[in-house]
């Protein structure tokens, strides 16, 4: 691939990245970061490729560590993101049973006292 083809891809990817990511709400920024950690694990491909042509002990070690680092990113990143997003997906807990709340006088008093609070 020519350098300029690669540059074209790079520049377009910047625009796509900004367009897509800027629509992610603040609420999801932490899962977004761990998910991008996982996507960054794509560098494992580089580790695999250099291991492919590794020729001596040092290169074996370097390549293996690079693959392991990449795998940490991929496996750890996707799993922890999944775990976090599971928390967001949870249905809201049913509120304290209506029977017990209805029996409380507070629900009735509340309007009068609120007036005092807002007057402050």
């Amino acid at each position, binding site marked *: 691939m020519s350098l300029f083809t690669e540059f074209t891809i790079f520049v377009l990817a910047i625009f796509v990245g900004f367009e897509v990511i800027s629509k992610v709400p*603040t609420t999801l920024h932490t899962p977004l*970061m761990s*998910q991008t950690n996982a996507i960054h694990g794509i560098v494992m491909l580089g580790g695999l490729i*250099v291991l492919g042509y*590794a020729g001596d002990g040092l290169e074996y070690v370097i390549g293996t560590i690079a693959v392991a680092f990449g795998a940490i990113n991929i496996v750890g990143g996707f799993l922890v993101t999944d775990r976090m997003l599971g928390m967001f997906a949870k249905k809201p807990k049913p509120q304290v049973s209506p029977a017990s709340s209805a029996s409380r006088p507070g*629900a009735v008093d509340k309007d009068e006292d609120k007036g005092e609070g807002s007057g402050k």
Partner: protein
Amino acid sequence: MISLAVLPPGGDAATALYIVSFSLFILGLKQGTHPTTAKRGNMIAAVGMAVAVVTTLLLDGMGNWGLIAIGLAIGSAVGAYASIRVKMTEMPQMVALYNGVGGGAVALIAWSEIRHGIHLGGAMPLQELIPTLLAGIIGSVSFWGSNIAFAKLQDLIPTRPLGVPGQQFINAILGIGVIVLAVIIAINNDPPSQGLFILILIAAAILGNLVVLPIGGADMPVVISMLNAFTGLSAAAAGFALDNVALIVAGTLVGSSGTILTMEMATAMNRSVGNILFSGFGGAPAAVAGSGEQRPVTSIGAQDAAIKLAYADNVVIVPGYGLAVAQAQHAVKEMANQLEARGVTVNYAIHPVAGRMPGHMNVLLAEADVPYENLKEMDEINPEMPRVDVAVVIGANDVTNPAAKNDPNSPIAGMPIIEVSEANEVIVIKRSLSTGFAGIDNDLFYEPNTSMLFADAKAAASEIAAEIEQL
């Protein structure tokens, strides 16, 4: 040695599969724009990764399968274990570590590329060498910078800014030195010098250490986001070096994401990224603390707080990192449950830098089963504040300080805040009147409609919940 060798590297089939892979990444990120679809989006991205990895394993020239298996096994085991065990309060550390290993992997790949270039003999083409050098530099800076960020977040080293005299000067020298070395390697590229390349890795490593060490705890959200962007860029550089389109696109996506988050965090603190990196401000107990005079505060107990809250219509909880430190999320949720059972509307106002990383507070509250619909962003809740009966500030300080709006001389002047002082009443749950990260007095505590509840966040929230139940 066995080799599957189905796909020629750089061939049409491999490239087509890489295109499928990065398209799935983009689709996955697109689904991440809503909490209900984000989980599926994550799966889609994971499938994209599987496609990319399998494609690469099928390339002609793959080998050393035993070592690949070892690397995969160790990395997967570590990653899986960490992701299952990590507490949500520790997510910033985890992301810092992931940034670190990501950067480290790129630096190692770059080193391997240089060695490969030397083995091949002859001049290494500049269009391969230059991105390799960039990948090495950025990768090494992110690896070491992230390790320091991790150590700070984990309290292994002090979170206050650590600096040496003439720091800026040393950083500048290191930065220039790295560039000069890179230029020398590029000029004498027949073959490239491995010794000088290792020197670059070392200088970049020192630079990574020195840049992050002076940054205080409060600025960590910016640092983590920025290192995230760096690792992305390093991956893209490695993609250029290896002629791999999947790396270029995926790395660029990560880089864009980190850049957007960095800018958002800096805006939320009303500071430039340069100021954060080079001023050593965050976490500094600055000398500006208060005017020294004793001002009167209204102090209340849990019972009074419970009464104020129970008879309100509209309550907003403003959580800060103190809430996470006290592990008070669940107690606060219990308090909110009690209020909601009485018909009180409870929302949460989240400042962008309420945690130790972007969106951290939202995750902590989601873990405590707070529905995400109730998590309101700063810009969404501020116009509502005058209609709020009681705002409860728990473990937050600087982000509620009206001085940011009213006092042009304040160190935090202009920082966007959650305007709790606009609410009819404010209850601040805090252990003492001590200052926040900015080291300045919070005028909010002394306002006539503010009541201070001096207690540990978790204990106070549980007590208030119990009191509300008794009412």
